[in-house]
């Protein structure tokens, strides 16, 4: 029994797992937790582990709602067997499986940087707001409904029309995927951030994003689009 390598199971487990020392430093984390730490600080997670730890040595599972961008958890397990280390495991909230029909006739292989530049140009022609752009020019072309996606970008940019400063980034999300119709697709993330709070209560943006198979994350001062890299 002791010959079984449990670490490899935990490594590849879809549930984030983190082992902290008693100073809050990470001693071990699995692949899923690595991705989670792109959205939340280790300090915040360590504090949660301390807050929900069992009163004495052992394991305690608590049902609660935790949301970090598109991560949504319904429970955590916190355990420790000595004073030196404590672990936390997160349980993903089940997602409603969406059956999306992809209409390939409207999808055209597109350089997203080109569409982004055109939308930035449109925004600049209307508003005199300083913009900064951090992009990855090596993102490969992928299939997109060019008109619908551009409409979405226009509406998203319009939300920032009163901002004092806007920063935009476009990056390839390493190790993350989205599953559409049982197919795994890489994700490109487009973030638009303002220096202050924005009014992001625009319902038609969500509908447009859904039509483009895009996950939309509305934050206090930012909007993040997670775009599937459809190539076939």
């Amino acid at each position, binding site marked *: 029994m002791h010959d079984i390598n449990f670490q490899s199971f935990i490594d590849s487990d879809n549930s984030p797992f983190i082992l902290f020392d008693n100073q809050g430093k990470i001693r071990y984390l699995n692949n899923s937790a690595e991705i989670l730490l792109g959205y939340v600080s280790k300090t915040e997670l360590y504090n949660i582990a301390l807050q929900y730890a069992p009163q004495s040595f052992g394991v305690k599972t608590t049902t609660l709602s935790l949301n970090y961008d598109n991560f949504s958890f319904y429970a955590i397990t916190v355990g420790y067997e000595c004073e030196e280390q404590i672990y936390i495991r997160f349980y993903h909230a089940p997602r409603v499986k969406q059956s999306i029909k992809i209409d390939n006739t*409207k999808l055209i292989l597109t350089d997203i940087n080109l*569409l982004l530049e*055109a939308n930035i140009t*449109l925004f600049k*022609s*209307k508003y005199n707001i300083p913009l900064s752009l951090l992009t990855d020019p090596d993102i490969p072309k992928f299939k997109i409904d060019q*008109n619908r996606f*551009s409409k979405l970008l*226009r509406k998203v940019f319009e939300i920032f029309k009163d901002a004092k400063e806007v920063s935009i980034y476009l990056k390839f999300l390493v190790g993350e995927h989205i599953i559409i119709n049982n197919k795994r697709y890489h994700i490109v993330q487009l973030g638009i951030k303002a220096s202050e709070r924005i009014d992001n209560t625009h319902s038609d943006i969500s509908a447009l994003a859904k039509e483009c198979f895009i996950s939309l994350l509305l934050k206090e001062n930012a909007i993040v689009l997670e775009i599937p890299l459809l190539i076939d």
Partner: protein
Amino acid sequence: MYNFISNSSTIQDIIKGLNLTKGLFVSSIIIGEAHIGKKGLISSIFGDLPMVSAKDTEILKDTLQHHNELIITDFEHIQNTPITLLEDKKIIATANYITNQNIIDDIFAFIYHMPSLKDRKEDILYLTDLYIKEAQKILSDNNDTDINIDDIDIDLQQNTKSLKSSIYKYILNKSMNKEDIKKSLYNYIYKHIDGNNAYKEFLDIYEEPLIKAGLARYHSQLKLSSILGINRNTLRKKILEHKIDA
């Protein structure tokens, strides 16, 4: 292909945006007052696409049935065209104003607002110079016609249309000889002569510019009366009569 030139930074952005999306299947519209160059700008970039006015409903319907990519001008008149015909098309459009924001919002990915000429000081200077040269070439035998831009009563109410008109009128006036003036007067008088005091009324048309131009050139009433060969008091009386600042 039509060559569109503008020094306005906003229009440079619009040109850049349209060029970036030229090869993509996206619909764009330029909205702005009449006679600001919308059609020219679009022709310079999408000159190979069929162009049809939304005013010509039947022609538009026919073009939509046979083409997936087209230019629609006067988009404010689109009401009589079924919107379903516009779906899944690449439409490049111009509109003088917005009649239905929802339709525009639904069809077009890129909505550009083109500034009026009065808000494009860089272009006013450029176009004034361009139209002067054009008018001189057409209306005047002599390109060295004494032009003073400050003397031109530039009218921007109807953007390029009124600007061009005011420049052409100025150059035409500058280039007219005695015979042209006589013909113009003849045509004007022929059209308007009636009533019972026409002699006096039409003499005023000649007399007022005669005194104004004379005063502008010689500054002195005494000198002008001598040049005109009339009594100084008579000249004074006519200055008052025509309410000329002297």
